[in-house]
């Protein structure tokens, strides 16, 4: 099992230059251990999405350090690094809406990532079947995303995020469209998966229903993060 977590130190992100420059992130510090699920909470415009994009290796931070496991991601050599492969192999994404590929069935939605990473189709589908079984949606393996309920779609999205066994999963409001029961169900799954696969999971949320489930919470306000202990309510 991989022993990776994520550590961010002094991360800054500035959009624009001169008088029009906006500091979206001013001083972000964050550490998530392998197997841990932390919450990231903040009001609109606080810099959550910008932070998520930096964490997801989608945009380049202006300054600061980001370490994935023992590997420094954004350093002077980042431009030569294959960020696309990094996102594929080392970071999993779960979105507010599941954003499953509508023309692929459930199995192939999950198997697509290992296939993109170069794994043979049979192995990729085997991995997908294992994850779908672990997330209790294997009975819908041949269905199209449009044939699934919202909760099932989100579980498939989680399975997809886990497909390449990434050390980090970024979940952007994963429970927003779900009712309380299903939202807590998703959080239970994320916690189970984090423990089972030793994955560091960051959940960006506004959802009051799930905030008590975090043991640690990072608040972000005006581009700066503050750590707070959560209730860590048992799921």
């Amino acid at each position, binding site marked *: 099992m991989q022993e990776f977590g994520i550590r961010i130190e002094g991360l800054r992100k500035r959009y624009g230059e001169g008088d029009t420059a906006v500091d979206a992130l001013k001083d972000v510090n964050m550490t998530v251990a392998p197997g841990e699920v932390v919450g990231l909470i903040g009001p609109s415009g606080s810099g959550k999405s910008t932070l998520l994009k930096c964490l*997801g290796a*989608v945009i380049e931070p202006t300054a600061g350090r980001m370490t994935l496991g023992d590997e420094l991601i954004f350093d002077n050599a980042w431009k030569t690094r294959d960020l*696309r492969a990094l996102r594929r192999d080392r970071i999993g994404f779960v*979105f507010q809406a599941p954003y499953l*590929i509508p*023309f692929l069935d459930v199995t192939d939605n999950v198997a697509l*990532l290992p296939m993109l990473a170069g794994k043979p189709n049979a192995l990729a589908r085997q991995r997908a079947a294992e994850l779908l079984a672990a997330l209790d949606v294997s009975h819908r393996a041949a269905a*199209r995303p449009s044939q699934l309920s919202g909760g099932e779609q989100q579980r498939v999205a989680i399975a*997809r995020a886990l497909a390449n066994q990434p050390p980090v999963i970024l979940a952007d409001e994963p429970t927003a469209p779900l009712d309380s029961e299903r939202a807590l169900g998703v959080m239970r799954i994320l916690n189970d998966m984090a423990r089972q696969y030793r994955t560091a999971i960051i959940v960006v949320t506004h959802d009051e229903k799930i905030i008590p489930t975090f043991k640690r919470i990072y608040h972000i306000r005006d581009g700066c993060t503050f750590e707070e202990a959560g209730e860590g309510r048992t799921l």
Partner: protein
Amino acid sequence: MINLAGRDILHAWGRFVFTGIGLGLLIGVTLSMAGIYRGMVDDGKALLGNSGADLWVVQKDTLGPYAESSSLKDDVYRSVLGMPGVARAANVAYLSMQVRHGEADVRVMLVGFEAGQPGEPGYLVAGRHITRNHYEAVADVKTGFRVGERVRVRRHDYTVVGLTRRMVSSGGDPMLFVPLKDAQEVQFLKDNDAILNERARTAANPQLNRPGVPGLLESIQASQASSHSVNAVLVQVQSGADPEEVAAGIRRWKHLQAFTRVQMEDIVVAKLIATSARQIALFLVILAVVSAAIVAFIIYTMTLGKIREIAVLKLIGTRNRTIAGMILQQALGLGLIGFVVGKTVATLWAPVFPKYVLLEPGDALRGFVIVMLICALASTLAIRAALRVDPATAIGG
């Protein structure tokens, strides 16, 4: 690796297939236009081939008898027969005209020929050849005439005794073969009122109506009422003779124009249908541009409808070339469906066209390559849009 393009097509096959059918109809029109041009060329070649001639002897300084009018005296063929290398020579007369058939008119090319000589229809598909000197006809099946039917040409009724096929003018009009004398009469004989008027004018001319010269007026009037003109002399050269040499001799010594088959093909194909060919070529270019625009628009719209999915694919690490390949394959798939539909409908509706539509396999192959190239080219717009999609779009904010 999963074929993303194929899965997407299967997922929305209805929209894809119906779009392909729409494109196919356009491609069908394009293939038909090319077929019409080929048909015109083939009609011209059939016209020359079916005449059985190696040389066409026509009036000097003309491009007759198909591209320009030509008039020769009907005894010219005798002097042509005497030229070295000439095996057979025969008079022919051509006249495009409307012939009444039931309640409608049929446009035909009336051909006057001498039985057993060059110019005679090569083969029959029904009935028999003309055996009488007058008022019998052999018709191309495209006229719609039937064996035994009587058709009126000018002042006389003709009995259709035989049917032939692929005997058409360079303009695609089916041929109606009649004896040469009848064709000469149809072409050159004036109507009764005109003859009476001409006789009166001649009789009133003291130079021609001389009381001291009996028979002069009658002779002149008889010559005015008869025709000894034909449009061309068709020549078959002797085995081993060079048609160009024989033609050169005729030009040099008989003061007539003589065309070889190659020269006549050039006249019929390059000159006679040149304007129509340019017209069709322009149509083909316009249709190609319209097809490209439609494919580009459809693929672009389909791609814009998948922006979120493309953003997700890029975010989870899909290579740009995989996404570009998906769009390209869809464009080519659309082109393939369009081509299959287009080729099928062009083949199905070709016989319905009033003019001959010749769909050549070579044209179909070229058309397929061009359709694929157009689709590939048209997909670049959508590929460009897809590659510009920011993976951050999937995260939102």
